[in-house]
């Protein structure tokens, strides 16, 4: 069988924000670079980001600085963040955003002509550089065009556009190849022709994004099958914080055309209420005792709040996100949810059509255009939606190099873990992509240059990878990949979803083990040319191993923090803040979980916080040692 071989200094897997930024940097550092993407060039998931990129430029409020940004990030992540990453991110993101302007980006402007910045939840000052609600698109297009301009320079110098930087679009990497624990290359297939490709390269940067496709209701695309997570695991790398997944309580669950699309909180803030299928406004039954004093007990009082917030208590629909999600979850599990597994968010019967159109224009238009749902006339069906995974490949903060038993592997973007701790602030992801994408590209190039001799992939490994890739096609009558994917999504959504319990998590592990056996027997019909059934069959293996990491870590962490909520352990526990949960692989596909202490904050950084605040997160002995250093 013919196989295309390519030799590069640096191979970047993923053409989202992180991958493209890494590739640009590697090429600028002189490395011969390839970028690989599952979809077409410029279509990666980053295009979906709306809000903006957080960077403490201080254009709107000059009081902003990297220290404030750092503080916000740590608070958002509930102090579980990798401190060094949060620091680098806060310090370097303004420069990275400005760089985009040289590449041709056109952000919205302030009056004096600088980049405009907007407010966002969790950020103390207006900080998100944005372009309307399509910041991600602007970012990816800018980086894409920068890549093209580098190719034009190369063409001027060498006569070939692709002599130093080449994009392999619609190409999926299925395996990393090693020699003695050093990265030797990557193996994949061209989606269009089904032909195999072998990239021989001493340095590989993973930038494959998240894992959202393992959940039934998700705002993520088909690309998010956790390939990078699984590749790193199989290569000897480690995953951290996999239990932390960001859910939004109100994503659309029905109609299917808008499933997963987020319904902003302001719908509830402007009078929308949650009802179950029996027509009951159920949130009153779910106000936890600690919040009783602040939330209304009767619908009458709640309704008065909208006009007179000073003399009335808030409606329980405005409880924190996880409480709302928990309540929705409970209603659905009790059989009072809709067929699609959601509840009804009703603003139509409570507010006039003009009011809704005036207050929520983009929501109104989005649903009208995408689903022909008129939110002024009918209730919305909503439920918790998977949005972002905080966990990922454990990396060295400064270089982006993966830790563990592998050299030459780098990771950046959503696929890497640590930066966001247990919860990500809106807008921090886009700047994360730029900051750590650049670092990973730079250090991957340096690593490749410094290497005295290049590891070479062994023929045996290539043959194994080929066989593994072809196996589903040989089993034409095997398990249906679509059915398996659906089951996996069901398991993850209902048992490892937004609210977790010991029993359900144990259950999920068992069901995942069963699924694994069936995934080993998955089959695909049709040939090798652009065959989505075959592609999905190959992705399932990755989804499964990553899901297992999530389930195991979720079972282990007996507290609730950020993107991990345990009904049986509803509180945040300082002891758990000192622990990071680390997944690795033992043997072929067996997931192993270990605890690892968190690196403490340097004193000058700890000094940015009030002692009282640290006291909420730290154990007493930690607190005394942290503040003792301050003197």
């Amino acid at each position, binding site marked *: 069988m013919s196989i295309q071989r390519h030799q590069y200094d640096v191979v970047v897997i993923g053409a989202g924000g992180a991958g493209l930024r890494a590739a640009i940097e590697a090429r600028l550092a002189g490395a011969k670079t390839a970028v690989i993407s599952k979809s077409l060039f410029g279509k990666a998931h980053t295009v979906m980001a709306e809000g903006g990129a957080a960077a403490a430029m201080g254009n709107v409020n000059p009081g902003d600085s990297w220290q404030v940004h750092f503080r916000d990030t740590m608070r958002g992540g509930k102090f579980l963040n990798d401190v060094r990453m949060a620091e680098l991110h806060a310090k370097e993101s303004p*420069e990275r955003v400005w760089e985009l302007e040289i590449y041709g980006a*056109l952000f919205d402007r302030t009056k*004096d002509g600088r980049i405009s910045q907007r407010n966002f939840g969790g950020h103390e000052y207006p900080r998100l550089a944005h372009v309307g609600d399509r910041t991600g698109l602007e970012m990816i297009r800018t980086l894409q065009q920068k890549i093209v301009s580098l190719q034009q320079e190369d063409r001027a110098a060498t006569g070939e556009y692709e002599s130093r930087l080449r994009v392999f679009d619609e190409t999926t990497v299925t395996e990393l190849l090693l020699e003695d624990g050093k990265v030797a290359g990557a193996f994949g297939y061209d989606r269009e022709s089904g032909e195999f490709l072998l990239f021989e390269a001493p340095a590989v940067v993973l930038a494959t994004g998240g894992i959202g496709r393992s959940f039934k209701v998700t705002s993520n695309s088909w690309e998010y099958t956790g390939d990078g997570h699984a590749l790193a695991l199989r290569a000897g790398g480690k995953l951290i914080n996999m239990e932390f997944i960001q859910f939004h309580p109100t994503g659309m669950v029905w109609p*299917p*055309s808008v499933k997963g699309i987020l319904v902003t909180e302001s719908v509830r803030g402007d009078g929308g209420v949650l009802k179950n299928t029996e027509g009951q406004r159920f949130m009153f039954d779910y106000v936890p005792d600690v919040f009783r004093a602040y939330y209304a007990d009767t619908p009458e009082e709640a309704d008065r709040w909208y006009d007179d917030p000073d003399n009335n208590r808030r409606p329980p629909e405005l409880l924190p996100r996880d409480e709302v999600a928990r309540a929705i979850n409970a209603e659905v599990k009790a059989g009072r949810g809709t067929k699609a597994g959601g509840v009804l968010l009703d603003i139509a019967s409570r507010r006039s059509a003009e009011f809704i159109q005036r207050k929520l224009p983009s929501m109104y238009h989005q649903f009208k255009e*995408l*689903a*022909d749902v008129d939110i002024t006339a009918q209730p919305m069906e909503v439920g918790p939606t998977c949005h972002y995974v905080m966990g990922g490949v454990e990396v060295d903060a400064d270089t982006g190099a993966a830790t563990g038993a592998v050299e030459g592997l780098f990771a950046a973007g959503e696929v890497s873990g640590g930066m966001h701790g247990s919860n990500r602030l809106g807008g921090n992801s886009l700047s994360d992509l730029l900051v750590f994408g650049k670092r990973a590209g730079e250090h991957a190039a340096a690593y490749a240059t410094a290497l005295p001799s290049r590891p070479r992939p062994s023929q045996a490994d290539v043959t194994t990878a080929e066989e593994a890739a072809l196996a589903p096609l040989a089993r034409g009558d095997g398990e249906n990949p679509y059915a398996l994917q659906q089951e996996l999504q069901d398991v993850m959504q209902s048992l490892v979803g937004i609210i977790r319990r010991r029993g359900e998590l144990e259950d999920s592990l068992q069901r995942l083990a069963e699924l694994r056996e069936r995934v080993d027997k998955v089959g695909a*019909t049709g040939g090798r040319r652009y065959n989505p059934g075959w592609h999905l069959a190959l992705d399932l293996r990755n989804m499964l191993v990553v899901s297992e990491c999530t389930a195991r870590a979720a079972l282990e962490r007996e507290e609730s923090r950020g993107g991990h909520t345990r009904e049986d352990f509803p509180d945040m526990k300082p002891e758990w803040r000192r622990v990071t949960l680390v997944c690795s692989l033992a043997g072929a596909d067996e997931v192993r979980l270990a605890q690892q202490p968190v690196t403490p904050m340097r004193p000058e950084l700890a000094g940015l916080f009030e002692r009282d605040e640290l006291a909420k997160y730290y154990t007493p002995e930690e607190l005394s040692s942290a503040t003792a250093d301050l003197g």
Partner: protein
Amino acid sequence: MRNFRIWRGDASSGALEDYQVEVNEGEVVLDVLHRLQATQTPDLACRWNCKAGKCGSCSVEINGMPKLACMTRMSTFTADETITVTPLRTFPVIRDLVTDVSYNYVKAREMPAFSPPPDLAPGEYRMQQVDVERSQEFRKCIECFLCQNVCHVVRDHEENKLAFAGPRLFIRAAELDMHPLDARTDRKEHTRDRQGVGYCNITKCCTEVCPEHIKITDNAIIPMKERVVDRRYDPLVWLGRKIFRRDQVEQQAAAEDTTPAPASPETVTHRASPGQVNWAQEIQVPPAPAVGPDGRFAMSEVLIDRAGAPSPFGDDVTFPVDPEQLRYLHPRTDED
């Protein structure tokens, strides 16, 4: 249950095939394609990513009109209507609904990139909102290539692909020409000479199909045509050119320009090592001479932009030609 007719096949052959699919309320065409994949045809090839009209992957033709599959609601069809889904016609087909859209990427690569002002460091850029607004409209483009697909210049005339960049790239040209800080000054000439804006007859189909509602014709193509008029067709400017022979100077400058020569077919599939001839490479088809619709040469020499007859190698070849790109081996009799 609804009737669907979907084009199945590949480069060698294909046909419309009928399917009966269950359709639920509130679905879009892409949902139905997914249901088909999950239940009847696991290998039905189609592209998609975001399912929210943001990535531009799912472009197909639905009942003959170019559309995004994820933005076409089933409720826009009557219950008994048969819905026909076919791949984009303008591009080579790969399989089923997936086409090879590399034409667009090749054209994008021939577009000189944003050229930053040399005297400004990062963070020093100052631009007013009114100055960036026009370009921002064009940056909404999600690169679905529906406009490229519907444009009759290439849809119905494959041979024009060489000289014509297409509406997606015209908005890119307009974006850069209107960018307040772009340092290049030759974008108008580029749009005329290398992108072939003259082929567009402003029949507005690109605007009709654009899912981002970019006013491609009104806000990009016509302004670019007008800007070209400023440089190329203004009678006074034209006279000045002829009298002072400025065009020759410019042509020389253009030849020395390091930016890639677009429209030059990148047919070099292999780069032979020096002294070796790559017999497999395709050679450039010389463009047909410049004849009018009646098959004759233009009436008057005044209307041709260069003196003498057009070169049989095409107008865009720079000499000397790189010998590696020729399929020619000089015979050497003294050796063997």
